[in-house]
């Protein structure tokens, strides 16, 4: 992988070229794609070694590892694209253990005919996300499937990280009396995707909240090492993630609708589309469960971070043999906030 560009008769055509089967065949075309596109964009010392694996020293301690596949449509959306999302998504899964992420690996599955210009744009976006987050992609893989056997591009990423001593964050640690916090307004990612997917124009552009949360988590863990649970409410939204945590911990959760932050545009879009924002996906938010005492301190720390400015305490953990998530509605009533069943489909009337 240390070849010079002069080895190839023509440069990779990232303006009009497309992915073809030779790009995944293991031959010169594949090497050229790796060198002139992937390594060029994602460049770092470990990747430059050109081996089939990355070798690095690790500090003593507990490591975490997480993997995520990205198949989003559309590939480019307001506030991000599949490339930045692939970096943020996995970093967040690593960070939700309280860990400091160290390295990423990535696998690309490309469909024959996929424009190289789009691929370059996506990889450049990944590279930017890596630079911003300080976590490099150190090894990768590329495969090409025949036309019709993929949907343009799929990206998987795997991340590893190290958990600081004294931190023990897990979904089964919520206890009655704990407070439930969310780091900011919910629903932006899902609404952004849905509106660009369906060509719905709302006048104002709602952007995805896609962001890497490990910086926020580092601040939180430094201030309160005894956090009980952290989880990012992605698919299925806040409601589904809270149900997961309630089941894992064998507790109930009581929410106060009034305290849940939501942007006016997102609320209006959900109103219009017949969606419940509690079930809409987020890509840059986290849920935190901790003792009530710690919650006040954490709220300060979170609000001081750019990604936690609208953090809020939204409910409490209670004893409940059924593991129900319930919510006092703004209206003054009470409702069960259940798991999402299937896809959230728009209502017609």
């Amino acid at each position: 992988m240390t070849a010079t560009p002069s080895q190839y008769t023509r440069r990779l055509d990232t303006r009009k070229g497309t992915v073809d089967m030779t790009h995944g065949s293991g031959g010169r075309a594949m090497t050229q794609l790796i060198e002139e596109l992937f390594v060029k964009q994602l460049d770092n010392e470990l990747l430059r070694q050109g081996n089939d694996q990355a070798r690095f020293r690790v500090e003593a301690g507990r490591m975490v590892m997480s993997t995520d596949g990205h198949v989003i449509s559309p590939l480019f959306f307001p506030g991000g694209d599949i490339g930045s999302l692939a970096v943020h998504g996995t970093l967040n899964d690593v960070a939700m253990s309280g860990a400091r992420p160290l390295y990423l690996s990535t696998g690309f599955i490309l469909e024959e005919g996929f424009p190289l210009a789009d691929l370059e744009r996506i990889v450049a976006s990944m590279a930017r996300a890596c630079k911003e987050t300080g976590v490099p992609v150190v090894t990768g893989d590329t495969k090409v499937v025949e036309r019709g056997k993929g949907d343009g591009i799929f990206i998987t990423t795997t991340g590893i990280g190290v958990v600081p001593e004294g931190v023990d964050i897990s979904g089964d640690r919520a206890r009655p009396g704990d407070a439930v916090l969310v780091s900011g307004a919910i629903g932006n990612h899902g609404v952004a995707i849905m509106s660009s997917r369906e060509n719905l124009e709302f006048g104002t552009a709602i952007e995805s909240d896609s962001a890497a949360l490990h910086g926020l988590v580092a601040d939180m863990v430094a201030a309160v090492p005894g956090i009980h649970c952290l989880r990012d409410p992605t698919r299925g939204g806040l409601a589904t993630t809270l149900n997961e945590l309630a089941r894992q911990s064998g507790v109930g959760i009581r929410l106060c609708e009034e305290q849940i932050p939501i942007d006016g545009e997102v609320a209006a879009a959900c109103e219009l589309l017949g969606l419940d924002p509690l079930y809409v996906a987020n890509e840059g938010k986290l849920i935190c469960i901790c003792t009530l005492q710690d919650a006040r301190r954490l709220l300060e720390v979170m609000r001081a971070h750019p990604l936690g400015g609208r953090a809020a305490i939204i409910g409490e953990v209670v004893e409940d043999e059924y593991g129900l998530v319930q919510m006092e509605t703004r209206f003054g009533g009470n409702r069960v906030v259940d798991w999402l069943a299937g896809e959230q489909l728009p209502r017609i009337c």
Partner: protein
Amino acid sequence: MKYVEEFRRRDLARILADAIAREADSGRRYRIMEFCGGHTHAIFRYGVQALMPQNVIFVHGPGCPVCVLPVGRIDQAIALVEQEDVILCTYGDMLRVPASGRRSLLKVKAEGGDVRMVWSTTDALRIARDNPDRQVVFFAIGFETTTPPTAAAIEQAAAGGVKNFSVFCNHVLTPAAIRSILEPVEAGDGEKVAIDAFLGPSHVSAIIGTRPYEAFVAAYRKPVVIAGFEPLDVMQSVLMLIRQLNGGRAEVENEYTRVVSREGNTRARALVAKVMEQRRSFEWRGLGRVPDSALQIRPEWAEFDAERRFTIPAGDASEVRGCECPHILRGVRKPTDCKLFGTACTPENPMGSCMVSSEGACAAYWSYGRLRKDSTEMSAA
């Protein structure tokens, strides 16, 4: 959100709840059918039942467009996809509704059938324009609210010379269905629907006005209040119905005065009348065949009628065995009376239509009320 939050105010809810508690006669029961699934949804989502006294009971009616469509019609839509190779466009709610043999449009789509979810009839027309070599059928469902856009699409297709577009028309009519609920159950297991009054859907009346209910109210002596879908609208309408019942009155009253008039939207009605006419009878899931309860495309517009353009097999599949949808829709039984509820039939794997839409009575019970004590007392027959 302007014009939304005002109708969800907690302080006003308290005032209305107090008034309802004060005026409801503790010596009797008030069984109020909310005809439309949108009201059922609002009642559960905002926790309205918890604000009612014990003797004010909501009975969930049949009014969810996908809930009332019989299995046979969905089978026919599937046949259009599989046998005629059409692009079938429909609203999202319709995709998961179970057809015969545990199939659904979602499964047909997964198997490679060209089924597309659209947000409006305009999308369906665009798909037809973009695919001139394919036949595009809009699977039209819904009450009077979704009918004018379908009629408009047919008119636009005719004006624009879109030859590959047609409509599989399943539009149904609210007043006829409400009337049929009060008729004796023909199957004859002696059960009687016990309903004292109705909340009428305001979006339907935005089109048809309040007038079509007048004859019904006179004939059956059951009060109707045309109610908005915000939780305060529902509570205000309940108070209006209690006052009618206490005073021995049976009238059509309009709570949703900010939109609904006696005559409705005359332009929309004229458009529908131009393109569509009443069917002599139509099968409803749960109600059986109901006379004059649905619309079909007029002969003058036959080329846009999928039922005339294609040979569609007769859809006479029966409902799933053990499914209580027919009785639940009539308000004769409640979801928890059904043996399939929560076991064979869940939102992940719906058997009957009441579980399919989040507005269906069973799905609403499952989501919002299944473990609440008071929910088991709701909609008692």
